């Protein structure tokens, strides 16, 4: 039995998900590959977005993958950290904006 729920070496096996459902697996990887191609956004910009989302999703595989991907593209550590802060700001903003609902409720019940 593995010692932890996450095993870094499992990232290499990601492609194997097609073995249990080839059609859906292949559709996913085709879509995934297409999304990250150069388009209106550069592949470099997409890599930084992916890094930020990897953090908000708290996916260790994605963090490993898009940190390495950023390094390959010449992304600096300053750019990476700024991207993560963008993700963190949205995440905390999303929490805090719900406090308006709390304030509304307080005002209605106890105003």
């Amino acid at each position, binding site marked *: 039995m593995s010692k932890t729920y996450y095993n870094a070496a499992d990232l*290499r096996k990601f492609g194997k998900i097609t073995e249990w459902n080839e059609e859906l697996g292949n559709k996913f990887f085709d879509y995934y590959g297409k999304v990250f191609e150069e388009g209106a956004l550069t592949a470099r910009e997409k890599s930084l977005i992916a890094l930020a989302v990897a953090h908000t999703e708290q996916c260790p595989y994605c963090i490993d993958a898009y940190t390495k991907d950023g390094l390959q*593209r010449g992304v600096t550590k300053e750019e990476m950290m700024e991207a993560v802060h963008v993700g963190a700001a949205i995440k905390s903003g999303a929490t805090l904006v719900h406090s308006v609902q709390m304030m509304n409720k307080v005002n209605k019940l106890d105003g």
Partner: protein
Amino acid sequence: MKKSLQARNNDLANTERQLEILSNGIFADGELPTFANKIKETNQFPLRPKKLEILQINLGYMCNQVCTHCHVDAGPDRKEIMTIETMQQCLDVIKKTEAHTLDLTGGAPEMNPNFKWFVEEASKAGIKDFIVRSNLTIIRANKKYHDLPQFFKKHGVHVVSSMPHWTRGKTDKQRGDGVFDKSIKALQMLNEVGYGTKGSDLKLDLVYNPSGAFLPGDQMALENDFKKALKTDFNIDFHNLFAITNLPISRFLDYLIASENYEDYMFALVEAYNPSAVENVMCTNTISVSWDGWLYDCDFNQMLNLKVASKVKHIADYNEELLQNRNIIINQHCYGCTAGAGSSCQGVVA
């Protein structure tokens, strides 16, 4: 300043030890296929030379820098320098070779005391593309080297220089403190005499290799980022950027093992294997000559002491026709040249 593996008596200064590591572990237990087995899958074994295009000559392992990932294990403590006798043997070959490109490398080739004489003599052969791989900082290292940009210009030399990043931090981390500032100044000196500017025949290309255990990204995208940053920050122009993969040998192998990245890196190389890159790997169109005149399939095989599998093994006995009939010697380090878009001293190959 750091020392070479050799000066530190590091285990990996022994090339047999390097080959042992590359042949055992994940490759011996079948977890990853050997390079030979991989190219057999696409009927590309044995790897054979095509038309000879590039004669690459290593003038010595002495260098003013001790870069973290140097595959030559070069540095100030390395004393291997090509003698004038071997240079003369090289000149005899340069005059008659079919190769259209002469590529001088090192160490810092400029540190060979007979470097200028050799360039003057070699340039008389009228070879089409005459490359000198300059680490840039040598131009600023000592007053006697300050005239190198003018000297290169006079002899129509094509300058190819290493530059791992457009930021100071990443460059100095790989190549040593102060390297970035000296490199920038040297690039400006080369620009001043006409190198690298738009439309100029004085070719100035940069070589990018990753600063750690990861593969290079898209060569064109990196070139665009380098051009934009160097122009904006320092008003520097250059022509092309060659993205080169670090091969798992010498100091980079030492780094991979010490940082516990070796297995992941080898998996990444094998995963990125591209059979179409095999078609154009540089060993198929290059002969590499060491400081002491021995012949190799490429600079990396030279550093692993894997001499050509031919009756002709030394520049003194050079015979292009016989050399073209050899099989190229391969090992697991060759995955470095076949990953992704491929890698060579001229950048991507596929």
